[in-house]
């Protein structure tokens, strides 16, 4: 099937089998920040934003992208909030192997954009679908809170 979507701000046409996963279609389109991890919806490495909501693209049919807005980490390269978040991740030492990082950044970015109060609990609730084998979570959580405190 042919899918017309906005991918990272560009109107795009993709071709996908009716049963294809969004994960595979995005990686084939060159968005390699979308990582293939557990492939069962548990780890968050394949996280992308679909119409602004975080989804794990390994459990999302490619067809969900039809007429939708899809954002991967590549699409937020020049976004000031994402830049700040990335800086906070670096400063906090929240990146080790980096495999989980794109997913963590997207989920955190979406939660920061949602606004409202942000406690450590809120950050952990938002990130509960992102598994990280390296950092033990304390530093990524700290980094998100740092980015929030630095928000205007």
């Amino acid at each position, binding site marked *: 099937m042919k899918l017309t979507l906005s991918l990272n701000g560009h109107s795009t046409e993709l071709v996908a089998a009716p049963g294809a996963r969004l994960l595979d279609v995005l990686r084939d389109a060159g968005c390699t920040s979308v990582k293939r991890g557990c492939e069962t919806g548990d780890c968050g490495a394949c996280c992308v934003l679909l119409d602004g909501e975080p989804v794990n693209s390994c459990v999302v049919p490619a067809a969900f992208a039809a007429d939708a807005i899809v954002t991967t980490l590549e699409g937020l390269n020049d976004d000031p909030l994402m830049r700040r978040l990335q800086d906070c991740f670096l400063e906090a030492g929240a990146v080790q192997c980096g495999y989980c990082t794109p997913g963590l950044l997207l989920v955190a970015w979406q939660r920061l954009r949602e606004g409202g109060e942000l406690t450590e609990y809120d950050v952990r609730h938002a990130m509960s*679908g992102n598994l990280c084998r390296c950092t033990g979570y304390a530093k990524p959580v700290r980094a998100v809170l740092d980015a929030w405190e630095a928000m205007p």
Partner: protein
Amino acid sequence: MRNLNAYLFATSPRDAVRLLHTTAGRGCYLAGATDLMLERRADLDFVVDLRRAGLDDVVVQDDGALRIGACVTLNRLESDPLVREFAGGAVADAAAACGNRPVRSTATLGGNICSALPSADMVPVLLALDAVAHAFDGESTHDIPLDEFFTGPRRTVLDGRLLTGLTLPAPQPGLVCLSRKLRRTAEDISLVQAAVAVARGGNGLGYVGIALGAVAPTPMRALAAEDILLRADPEEFEIAVAAAAESAADASDPIDDHRASAEYRRAMVEVLTRRLLREALGIDPTAEDPVHGGLR
């Protein structure tokens, strides 16, 4: 999903039923796809996507009942003000405790119910609140008490009909609804789920709903246990609660598997049911158990 020939979008409930029944091959409805994508079914020729069929309303009716469309996502249930305010937020809290944030973006209430897993996490709360399911056959809609909806693991009474949504009757004044689940890790499926809803009324309790999940081939209501409490005198609530919890455990029919033994699951039905009922009725949870003694 692997061998699909066609991916169809339904534009209305009627369109969805028509597409399912007139398309050649074997098909099924698809809502959030979080269950379907993992099942990796090789036998499906087509799916009918329901997300554009207009099944995503959340409405409080004039009589105070809450109507939830089948395609409302778990994330929406968690945050929607109408759902948060209903029955003390019991349905919203149950949704927040399912899966993880990205999964809740797409996973729907209807999908959770229609997958009909014995361990579906949304179901016990809905059963305790006396939910009614609405099944649409393309012509008319039939109201089915959720209690009569499940016929076995992964089996329902739907038989090709579309679940359009659920109605939760208006809670009686002062109703308290609580639920809890036991699992080995945050990601694992539930070992035991229990939900209770109670409201005082007359000389005693005016409403009692007790529901269990993951401890029988289908989610279930513990009707005998409800009856014990409905007939109980307020002076005897503590004893009635202990008896109701025991009755709920007797009514459950859990399996032995690598996650837990049937014996453990049954014991936990009793413990969870008693604790939830005591909390809901404002009985000191640290007081000595009137029947068995000790702190239970």
